[in-house]
């Protein structure tokens, strides 16, 4: 450890790379509501066992608190991990705040985000169990490029269904995926029944993550050599991401620091979960030196927790996936065209559903104009251009630091900078030229989606989970 208290960046050696992930399931305040198979109207995993390898399935439902990280996965992680923890000294000065602001930076990975933390192990377990190809969906391309990278590491083919709006507007992440040898289709595509049906009904459909998931799942279900991989929401994905928080804890320990508050953006919820779960473990095991608050930030354009319902819903538009209890805007949600592509999913991880409904985490929402204002201040003080997704967290951090200025509280603030914004320059260009709109998703739309869901599955009202 080279760090001192005057340091700007806190590095760990490669030997400090965690050897185990942290699984939060045994530490939840109440058990996770079971997956419901709509065919039987009873608990059951539906198609899930047919699209994942056995080890991933075991992890999805595991009650083991610590799960070993395979040596081959740690070796692949070493390409960029451990990632730095950085103190935002210049941002603190610009805000004149007594608070200390630290951020864990995941943008140093080859795909430029936290996503390979789970792409690598998912590709690894699939390779071990004989899969030849993985199919997946991607919005703006963060997850698709991470899985392309992961598949390349372990010699698997990779097929990515990319939401058409992003495929057309953001060609460069597609090029990145192709450079890493993946096959990329604009979704809805003609490759799947789900895609063809949507194209028939809506010839100009811009696509959505829900549609792309339907296509990737169908691809995996209809091809023996292929499995499916998902970039967020599922328990095993959140667990893989805990390498982030486990490293961060070590880095903060090295300077005798502990966060008063932890911020992160949520799309499906995996990056924020990866950061705060290890600190949550401290809290529930009575080891935390502070009553740390965990605050998730979502866009007002996709406000699953702040405006959505906590209900059983499908993960995809074509309703191939089973029902899971989560905060949702409805599986037919078509996201407004905001630039934070990674935050445009209708549902949030079921684990976060339990934690939010039990008031173990707080949630706030911001519109994209205030988010880009915060991103600009960050770029102008710290130099790193953040992706629009973590810029949501930056907005919340700045607000908190300004509250500290008023109250004089010397809080230690921690947030996750889950990716850089080099692929989002068009969004910054639009922001700098005043072309962004402060979109807020109407509560009425959510109520209608929830009503449709109740009409679709009236028997859901009888479930007590």
């Amino acid at each position, binding site marked *: 450890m080279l760090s001192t208290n005057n340091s700007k960046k806190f590095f760990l050696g490669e030997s400090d790379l965690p050897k185990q992930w942290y699984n939060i399931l045994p530490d939840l305040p109440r058990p996770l509501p079971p997956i419901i198979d709509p065919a039987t109207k009873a608990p059951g995993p539906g198609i899930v066992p047919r699209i994942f390898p056995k080890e991933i399935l075991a992890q999805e439902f595991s009650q083991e608190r610590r799960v070993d990280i395979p040596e081959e996965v740690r070796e692949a992680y070493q*390409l960029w991990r451990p990632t730095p923890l950085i103190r935002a000294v210049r941002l603190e000065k610009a805000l004149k705040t007594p608070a200390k602001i630290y951020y864990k930076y995941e943008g140093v990975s080859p*795909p430029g985000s936290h996503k390979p933390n789970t792409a690598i192990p998912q590709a690894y377990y699939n390779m071990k169990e004989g899969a030849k190809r993985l199919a997946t969906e991607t919005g703006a391309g963060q997850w698709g490029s991470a899985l392309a990278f992961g598949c*390349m590491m372990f010699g698997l083919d990779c097929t990515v269904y990319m939401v058409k709006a992003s495929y057309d507007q953001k060609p*460069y992440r597609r*090029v990145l995926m192709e*450079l*890493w040898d993946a096959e990329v289709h604009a979704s809805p595509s003609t490759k799947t029944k789900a895609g063809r049906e949507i194209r028939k009904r809506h010839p100009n459909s811009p696509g959505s993550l829900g549609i792309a998931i339907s296509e990737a799942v169908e691809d995996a279900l209809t091809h023996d050599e292929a499995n499916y991989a998902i970039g967020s929401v599922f328990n095993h994905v959140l667990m893989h991401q805990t390498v982030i928080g486990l490293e961060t804890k070590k880095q903060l320990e090295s300077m005798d620091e502990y966060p008063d508050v932890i911020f992160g953006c949520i799309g499906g919820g995996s990056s924020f979960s990866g950061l705060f779960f290890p600190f949550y473990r401290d809290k529930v095991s009575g080891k935390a030196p502070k009553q740390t608050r965990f605050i998730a930030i979502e866009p007002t354009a996709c406000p699953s927790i702040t405006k959505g319902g906590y209900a059983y819903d499908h993960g995809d538009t074509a309703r191939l996936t089973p029902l899971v209890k989560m905060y949702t805007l409805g599986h037919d949600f078509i996201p407004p065209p905001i630039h934070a592509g990674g935050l445009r999913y209708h549902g949030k991880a079921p684990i976060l559903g339990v934690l939010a409904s039990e008031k173990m985490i707080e949630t706030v929402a911001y519109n994209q104009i205030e988010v880009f204002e915060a991103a600009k201040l960050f770029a102008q003080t710290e130099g790193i251009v953040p992706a629009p997704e973590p810029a949501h967290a930056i907005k919340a951090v700045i607000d908190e630091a300004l509250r500290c200025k008023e109250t004089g509280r010397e809080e230690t603030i921690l947030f996750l900078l889950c990716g850089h914004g080099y692929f989002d320059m068009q969004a910054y260009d639009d922001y700098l030229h005043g072309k962004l709109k402060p979109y807020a998703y109407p509560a009425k739309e959510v109520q209608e989606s929830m009503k449709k869901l109740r009409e679709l599955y009236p028997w859901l009202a009888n479930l007590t989970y």
Partner: protein
Amino acid sequence: MHPGISAEELVRQEDSEHYLRIAISEAIEDTLANENTRYCLGSVLNHVLMHQTVVGLEAKKQFEMLDAYPDLAIGCIGGGSNFAGFSFPFMMDKLQGKKNTEFIACESKAVPHTTRGVYTYDFGDTAETTPLAKMLTLGHKYACPPIHAGGLRYHGMAPLISYLINKKYMRSVAYTQSEIFEAAEILARTEGLIPAPETAHAIKCAIDEALACKKTGEAKVIAFNSSGHGLLDLSAYEMFLAGKLKEFEPAKIEVPKYVK
């Protein structure tokens, strides 16, 4: 490939707004005309090369931690600052007779300032506002073709690098666009990193040297400077993957001599 086309003809094929040396003239004129403005240069000059030595000084310490020392130090050269920064702390050992590392500077065949240029006094800009500096140059009117490695499109080379190449402390090699993107693709598919097209020149050289070691069985330590990522250059990669890259290699280069 443009066989038989002279530099002058290449100039005519391209919009004159594409040249760095014209932009330099503009920036200098702006500075001279405005009292509160100063000029900054991103490469070529001695102080810029010196600032970049943090790169090599860190690398040297890191090699010490590994108990290793590079047999080969490789970098791409546009104005020369990244390679100078990376290699000079090792060059110090060579100049003091302590080590015999081989230094290889990599450039584009479209802008072959050190492999085909002349070691002479030349201007740094088109409008001839800068003083004359002795360097390896293609002439300050040279029409740098529109290759994707924008950072390598400058007619001259840092006087310090030019001196070292002229005195044979360093050697230089030149590559085509296709060669360097093929090398970049190998790096992307093995190490995961997407290099900038400039950096890809150094990667091409490192790969060639590693393959030469495969033949001879020598276990050389090869160090190259990965000077930048290519995430803002993916349109160039898109053209490469689509087989649409063009090659530019002037058949004839005539460098006017200003001072003998």
